[in-house]
């Protein structure tokens, strides 16, 4: 009677085991990479209801971030400006522009503009802008060089591990408090010593406790 299974089937379990190992590792690696915030979140670049250009306002015109994001030094939210802030200038500048139509409509009707959120943290993470600004963390550290962005996109993954890298070693991301909004600021050669002194003087000890952000 002929063998039902040919001889190579003896090694089938081995092949299967190897196959499972290879495929399993590949799946894990793929998920690890493609499922990470660095892949999924970075580069998120939604189209806003108003074609507002940060490059024009913050870059070419050199407006300070805080002209619009007024609460960034006082509150945990940086806040998106009310329509009123836009109209401060655009009553007179480009009052007929087609691009600004949604702004004028909002001003006339009282209906707010619904901006699309770019930097979105989970609801259980309570990030506080004011404490970071007060500690000399530049806007650019988390938001990238917004002054060069025609349309704002996310440049950092904003996951917890990424937060903790800086909380464990904040010095490279610190700068004088009056330079936090300056997108062109470059650290001087003696930055490390300056940062150590600055942290000492301002009592900067970034927490690594869960309760710092989660509550």
């Amino acid at each position, binding site marked *: 009677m002929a063998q039902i299974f040919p001889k190579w089937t003896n090694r089938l379990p081995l092949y299967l085991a190897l196959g499972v190992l290879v495929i399993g590792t590949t799946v894990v690696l793929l998920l690890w990479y493609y499922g990470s915030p660095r892949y999924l979140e970075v580069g998120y670049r939604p189209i806003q209801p108003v074609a507002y250009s940060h490059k024009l306002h913050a870059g070419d015109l050199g407006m300070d971030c805080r002209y619009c994001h007024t609460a960034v030094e006082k509150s945990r939210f940086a806040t998106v400006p*009310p329509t009123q802030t836009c109209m401060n200038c655009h009553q007179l500048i480009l009052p007929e522009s087609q691009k600004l139509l949604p702004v004028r409509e909002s001003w006339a009707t009282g209906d707010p503009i619904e901006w*699309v959120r770019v930097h979105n943290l989970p609801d259980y993470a309570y990030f*506080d802008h004011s404490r970071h600004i007060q500690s000399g963390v530049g806007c650019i550290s988390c938001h990238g060089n917004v002054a060069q962005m025609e349309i704002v996109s996310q440049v950092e993954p904003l996951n917890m591990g990424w937060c903790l890298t800086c909380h464990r070693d904040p010095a490279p991301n610190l700068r004088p408090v009056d330079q936090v909004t300056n997108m062109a600021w470059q650290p001087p050669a003696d930055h490390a010593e300056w940062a150590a002194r600055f942290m000492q003087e301002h009592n900067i000890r970034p927490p690594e406790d869960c309760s710092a952000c989660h509550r």
Partner: protein
Amino acid sequence: MSPIKKGHTLTGKQYWRSLDELAGTPEFEDWLHREFPQGASEWNNAWSRRSFLTLMGASLALAGLSGCRRPEEHIVPYVKKPEDMVPGNPLKYATAIPMGLHACGLLVESHEGRPTKIEGNLKHPANRGRTDARIQASVLDLYDPDRSTVPSRGGVRSDWTAFVSFWREQFVAFQATGGEGLAVLSETFSSPTMMRLRRAFEARFPNARWVAWDPISDENRYEAIRAVLGRVHQPVFHYDRAKVVLSLESDFLLTEPEAVTATLGFTSGRRIESEKDQMNRLYVVESLYTLTGANADHRLRINSSDVGAFALAVAGELQRQGLAIEGLNGLTVPTMTGRAAEWLAPLAKDLLRARGESLIVAGSGQPAAVHALVMAINGALGNLDRTITYVDNRDAAYPSTSGLTKLTADMAAGKVSALVMIGGNPVYNAPADLNFAAALSKVATSVHLSSRVDETSAATVWHIPRSHYLEMWGDARSLDGTLSVIQPLIEPLYQSVSEVELTALLASGESARGYDLVRETWAGLVTGNFEVGWQTALLNGILSDSALPSIPVNAAQVGIAQAMASHGWSLRPTATTNLEVVFHPCYTTGDGTRANNGWLHELPDPITKLSWDNVATFSPKTARELGVQNEDIVSIQLQGRELSIAAWIVPGQMDNAVGLSFGYGREKAGRVGNGVGVDTYRLRDSQNMYRAGSATVSNTGRRYELATTQDHGSMEGRPIILMASLDEYRENPDFITGASVIPEFMAESEKAKERDLVREYPSSWKEPDYSTGYQWGMSIDLTTCTGCQACTVACQAENNIPIVGKEQVRKGREMHWIRVDRYFTGDVEDPGMEHQPMPCQHCENAPCEQVCPVAATVHDTEGLNVMVYNRCIGTRYCSNNCPYKVRRFNFFNYTDEYPETIKMVQNPEVTVRSRGVMEKCTYCVQRINRGKQVAKLENRSIRDGEVTPACAQACPAEAIVFGNINDSESRVARVKRINRTYSLLGELNTQPRTTYLASIRNPNPEMKA
């Protein structure tokens, strides 16, 4: 393993929490040995577990498909940003809550225009920053989804303009007759603007009448004052000045409207720092077990109808000991028997010793005769103008049951053609013999101002939605006369008007804005520049120096015998063996107006620990005689009226007394309150407002399930509350050391005797360094804590704690982060009572952390035991391992189906938890972080007292102190150095950050019990 000596306490008292525990019944044993009660983890719904899993599987698969796409969120800024508004930083506004004839000053937190949390106003003398559970929960009423949204006429949707034009026609017609046949029925109030408008109304319609009435009030007290002094003056009790307090069935610590003020004053006389300090002494004579009785140094149970006779016997004894009491001649002093007789001599002696510093107060349920007698005794003891002052409040509308009786009779006789009811709910809560509903149907034009279409609104022609006090302009005086503006936090959510606006329309025929009306009144109240004075009053929440001057009352003026004779009052002991029904207001629902408030329904009664129901309470002896057990439905017959209600046994209640609380059994309260409990107003008549003799009670044989939190999280009879009398404390100031339990294996250790266990026996875990930075700690003083549970509701409001409902509470799934445990001590028939607030103890050596498989509960560097919701996978091991049973598990997604309006009350600073997550007290970490943020922006460290958790902030007894224990000068560090400090279950070496101060009572050494 039994290294722990059980039940070893200083006083050797036996502590027990329920009758079942004392008897050691199998049910209790079973309950005790399960972390979660039987069936708690089973899904007993109409859906089977299997079908649930099937459905969940399907929805998970669908959810998986849509999960790849990032959800698009929007940021919606203002169009025009209001001044001073910074999103993310809440604002606080001063306002006041009107509570009948009283008012408390508040600071209300507003997040982007939504009021979310109520706190007391430190500048207001009535509550000095403190609140109670009722005030805390009132913010939820604002967002009540069952509030009515538009006026209606005959049940058909209408609007305010239609009502204004309707009233103009009426106005013209009534003006012709001077208001003949026109009547207004209002709640009591103490408000200059309301009184101004009422006078305008009465001037415009001289033939109309205005009756003020509340179902539960101090009317008897006012009647006595009127009889004795000739007109009503408002008494102000100064508990802070009293060394000896005698309560004659007055529950001044809980159910009376001025409870916050009284608790503040009373506990200030009990706060001791060392054995050398003095304490006040409280005697309570009462029929039911009240919270005031639970805090008494001596408590005497007696028939409610015998309290008057007892008071007269006290007066007689005082006279015998040499005190002259004016106008008592001609009254026969009754003879007391039993314990009451033993009480008289030492009590009278104590009162005489504290002349001018004692205070006798009779409860609102006691008849006017008792109040008049108490006035006379207080006068003779020299207490008037000292511990009791009287003010002449011309802005107060006092309650009048006789006025209501006459009004109802005239309505029934067809003499009233138009009735306007400003608030109140008389169809539900008027005395049953008046038959208010039938009388109302004879009135052609009836108008009711009410927050919802309730029992009364359903029977009137017009229903006008009433504004919540957080959305209206008004003003209110507290008992001492201090005047506050009621300032709105938000525009009315619906088409509602305030009582001020409605009264203005009644009086003038013109619709006016509340803001203008209040300013018009205040133009006559503010001295100097009006705008400056008005803005200052708005900012401070009070008009400075507005407390009314006290009226000197001459003791000789108090002619009790004449007053009693002329009114036909008597004070004879009844010596009845019949069952006596005693009505009392429910702490939470009050007279029934708060019946749609889930926070209050879920708050357990401080005495019975029952939530979501009212019951008939009996003493153990009476229950035995009647053959009644807990949860039996009994039928109570009283003067031809009948009521079926579940029974509950309360040790310490007077035999032959049946306790019934008001405020339940609403039919039109809303989705939360409808059908909760039984309406006991049906038994009440206008002659027997607070008690009625000769009731018959029979067991119907039916059973009714009640939800009690009594035995939840039991501590197995170990010495949880340490207590001593003041004399014992003075004899042995370090009694705590002797009373604490030391495990046998370390009994010989010197360090163990100093209770410094962890340093002697280092833990197996890596101990973090707690010597630097902020180290948070809390101290709870069991001497001043009254057990009122203001902390529980304050915590619920601050921390987005869900309401779980009766079924879930019955299964032991209530979510309160700080519960208040109640223990009985001593004799079953007449026990003492102790209360203990129980939040997470924030152990440095936390048992919960050691068993969490996913590190979802860990320590932070400031000593907080933190709970990380997004890590928690719901194993519940932590709760199993917690010796204090303070961890709460979300068995369901309780917040998922909240109506939109209820979502508005949620605190945006705190995560809303979902199903399958453990939660517990965080020491209000959001407030700590807010404090750090403010300090950081000012480049300084947090000051002592700057961060206060919600429980400590609310506590009217100021029993909870919180702060940085690393700062030896902080208040909490100082309090923790008091020699009464002990750690709960310290022998487990958990090193809790929350410690307790042992309870000290101050019994009279000359009195036996």
